[in-house]
């Protein structure tokens, strides 16, 4: 491939690619992101290709293995284009049938269709799925059109046109102005206005003129994976954003700091960087404009704290990943003491979009203070799990019920945890809260990187707080005392409460300690770490009191506080629980009510899970 040396040449190249493609050609698309691969999509993709080849359809039907589309619940998924027919949870055995029935004979296979949780209706087409209907998929939509390892696919959907536009017609200051006007705020959690950050970085003096741009792909929140999906599914959008950012702040060197646990993201990104270099979109004299910029990948060791800007830069420099006091901001003195502009994956991916369509278009989406869309990873006790991209200002109810399809088993929605371990819980009475940066902070949580864990009435709030604090005690860097020792002592108290050893005054001590940790910690990890505890106490204080005073866990989770017994009226004596119990604590004759020996019972809950008659009572 000869390097593309001008924006005009890029357009000619794009027209060339599009000219060779027939939009009405039959095609099969399957998503093979990390989430898809774990469900067996890799084998499915191989089988499809083999099948098409065996039947001599390789020429007439195209096959595309893309990154994650977002609807993880129905993986492995096959979509047939141009109609957009969706088949969910496809297994290897289904593939010959799909090809012979649907691809060749245009007949729909009923059993592979998605059933709507609310209406019970079968849904054929992608555009009718309620999961996608309420979303505004500005960033994720391209994931279903692009083979992440093909730069031509990205160029075909309009990729690198924003870069061509700014190199041709804009000055760096104009780019910064455009981003400032768009109101884009950092998607990594803090929500700092991106344009302002770029401006400070451009204006900050650098003694040798070197500036850096960094992409923060150290996504570590439990249950959050939007950055991974973007990097895996559409790496060029992030690269394009970074090149534009580098042009705006005047940088020649960029890094992508990505976690070691994301091998596919690293692989796809490496390929993407090589291709961009080959095409002349990265490296020296980009598109003949005289602007030089290159990107290196740096892999982190998987420390959660390295998502913090100063810790990330310390780690990039080869030091211990621990934060420093940020009295001098990293935009002034960051990596190697040079002005450094750090943005999150999703922020970078927004940049080409804004420059292509204009800040005015972008500001129409979202609320007054938060513009654009945000990708959330909707997980936990919800019917449709996956990545959802929604406009800012959408209510929690719309996300959970309209997109998520409600709570499984018709159970009661209890709370939602946003912002990962640094965020807080939002109880059911705030379900109509519009989701944006500021409103979430007002209720004691935060946007964070966009994890959204839904909980029903079988989730114990004390246990939840304990889980997050445990995560943070392990993931704190251990540098400052309040975070290291404070969180550890908080965990002790929470452990005691869940084990029935809670004492009067523990809640007050937790609150006091939480406030001190927030106030005195060195970095944002520590100062947000008590959020799960403080917000659960704020909204579910009576649940804590139940644990401490009545030694009772209302959700039936804390093992030391619950006993399992069998409802004699409901028990049919089928014996399934007897076979399942690992402690052999259940006895009883066939067809007669069974009973549980409390001495032997370890409250693992397996009997409750296997009982088809709801005869196991937790009290």
């Amino acid at each position, binding site marked *: 491939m000869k390097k593309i040396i001008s924006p005009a040449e890029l357009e000619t190249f794009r027209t060339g690619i599009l000219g060779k493609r027939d939009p009405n050609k039959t095609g099969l698309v399957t998503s093979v992101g990390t989430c898809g691969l774990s469900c067996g999509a890799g084998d499915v993709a191989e089988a499809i290709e083999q099948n098409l080849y065996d039947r001599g359809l390789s020429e007439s039907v195209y096959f595309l293995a893309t990154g994650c589309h977002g609807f993880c619940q129905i993986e492995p998924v096959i979509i047939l284009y141009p109609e957009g027919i969706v088949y969910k949870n496809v297994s290897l055995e289904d593939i010959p049938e799909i090809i012979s029935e649907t691809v060749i004979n245009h007949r729909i296979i009923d059993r592979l269709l998605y059933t709507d949780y609310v209406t019970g209706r079968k849904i054929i087409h992608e555009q009718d799925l309620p999961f996608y209907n309420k979303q505004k998929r500005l960033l994720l939509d391209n994931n279903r059109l692009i083979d992440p390892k093909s730069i031509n696919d990205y160029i075909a959907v309009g990729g690198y046109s924003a870069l061509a536009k700014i190199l041709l017609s804009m000055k760096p200051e104009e780019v910064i102005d455009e981003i400032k006007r768009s109101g884009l705020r950092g998607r990594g959690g803090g929500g700092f206005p991106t344009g302002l950050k770029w401006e400070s970085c451009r204006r900050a003096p650098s003694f040798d003129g070197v500036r850096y741009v960094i992409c923060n792909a150290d996504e570590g929140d439990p249950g959050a994976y939007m950055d991974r999906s973007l990097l895996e599914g559409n790496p060029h959008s992030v690269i394009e954003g970074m090149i534009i950012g580098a042009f705006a702040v005047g940088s020649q060197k960029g890094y992508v700091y990505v976690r070691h646990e994301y091998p596919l993201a690293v692989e796809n990104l490496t390929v993407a960087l090589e291709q961009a270099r080959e095409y002349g979109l990265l490296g020296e004299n980009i598109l003949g404009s005289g602007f030089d910029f290159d990107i290196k990948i740096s892999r982190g060791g998987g420390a959660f704290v390295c998502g913090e800007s100063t810790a990330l830069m310390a780690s990039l420099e080869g030091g*211990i990943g*621990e934060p420093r*006091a940020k009295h001098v901001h990293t935009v002034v003195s960051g990596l190697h003491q040079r002005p450094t502009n750090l943005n999150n994956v999703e922020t970078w991916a927004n940049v080409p979009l804004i420059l292509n369509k204009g800040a005015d278009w972008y500001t129409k989406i979202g609320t007054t203070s938060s513009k654009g869309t945000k990708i959330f990873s909707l997980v936990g006790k919800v019917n449709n799990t996956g990545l959802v991209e929604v406009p800012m200002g959408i209510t929690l109810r719309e996300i959970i019920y309209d997109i998520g399809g409600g709570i499984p088993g018709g159970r009661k929605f209890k709370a939602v945890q946003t912002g990962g371990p640094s965020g807080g819980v939002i109880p059911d009475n705030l379900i109509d809260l519009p989701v944006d940066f500021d409103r979430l902070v007002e209720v004691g949580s935060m946007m964070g990187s966009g994890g959204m864990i839904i909980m029903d009435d079988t989730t114990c709030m004390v246990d939840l707080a304990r889980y997050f604090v445990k995560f943070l005690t392990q993931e704190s860097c*251990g540098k*400052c*005392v309040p975070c290291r020792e404070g969180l550890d*002592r908080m965990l002790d108290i929470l452990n005691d409460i869940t084990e029935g050893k809670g004492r009067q005054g523990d809640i007050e*001590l937790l609150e006091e300690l939480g406030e001190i940790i927030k106030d005195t910690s060195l970095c944002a990890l520590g100062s947000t770490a008590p959020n799960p505890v403080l917000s659960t106490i704020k909204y579910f204080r009576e649940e804590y009191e139940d644990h401490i005073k009545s030694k009772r866990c209302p959700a039936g989770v804390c093992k030391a506080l619950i006993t399992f017994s069998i409802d004699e009226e409901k028990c049919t004596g089928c014996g399934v629980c007897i076979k399942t119990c690992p402690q052999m604590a259940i006895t009883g004759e066939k067809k007669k009510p069974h009973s549980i020996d409390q001495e032997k019972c370890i409250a693992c809950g397996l009997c409750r899970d296997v009982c088809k008659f709801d005869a196991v009572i937790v009290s």
Partner: protein
Amino acid sequence: MVELTIDGVKISVPEGKTVLEAARENGIVIPTLCYEPGLSPYGACRVCIVEVIKGGSSSLEASCTLPVSEGQVIVTNSDRVKKARSVVIELLLASCPNSKTLQDLAASMGVNRVRFRIKDKGCILCGLCVRYCREQMQSGGIGFIGRGTSRRVATAFGETPKECRNCFGCEWICPVCERACLAGRLTNGVCGMCFNPTPVETCPVCIHCSESVGSSGHRVYW
């Protein structure tokens, strides 16, 4: 020169100083643990926190890493500061109860109880020894390993570091007098760095300091 207000006193110091330095030069006492003149400020112990007042709001910052700036208003002994400091001291005592330095500091602040579980680790991870070794001795024989609650001071691969010059600076500077000596962790049972290679049984960590009489040696105040 930068002019700022500490505890209501207007003082002026050269640019580039920290608030702690400015305060000390002007006779204002701020307690510290992980700070030592001549070593780079680290900001780990949070004992030196002060309240920075900005307009209608205020925040707590570690004075050892906070650079002075024009018009800054600092309060070193407000109720909020005292409260935060005393909880920090409680946490430090809970992780290192047998340190005389910590006990003295606690007594001076009126902290007379520890409400948290005691887990004697013998080290408060203030990093003074690590910084002394690297910055004053240009050695770098010891450093931090691990993160979170498993963080500790150690030598590379648990072996006696070649860089060590037996200067004993790490012991000298340790505020809790218990350097993470590796005695017992090595195959022959001694670290080879100490004058007296006979480990004191009652003290798992330090075998050198004059007060290393073990867990029961120092007076515990609660």
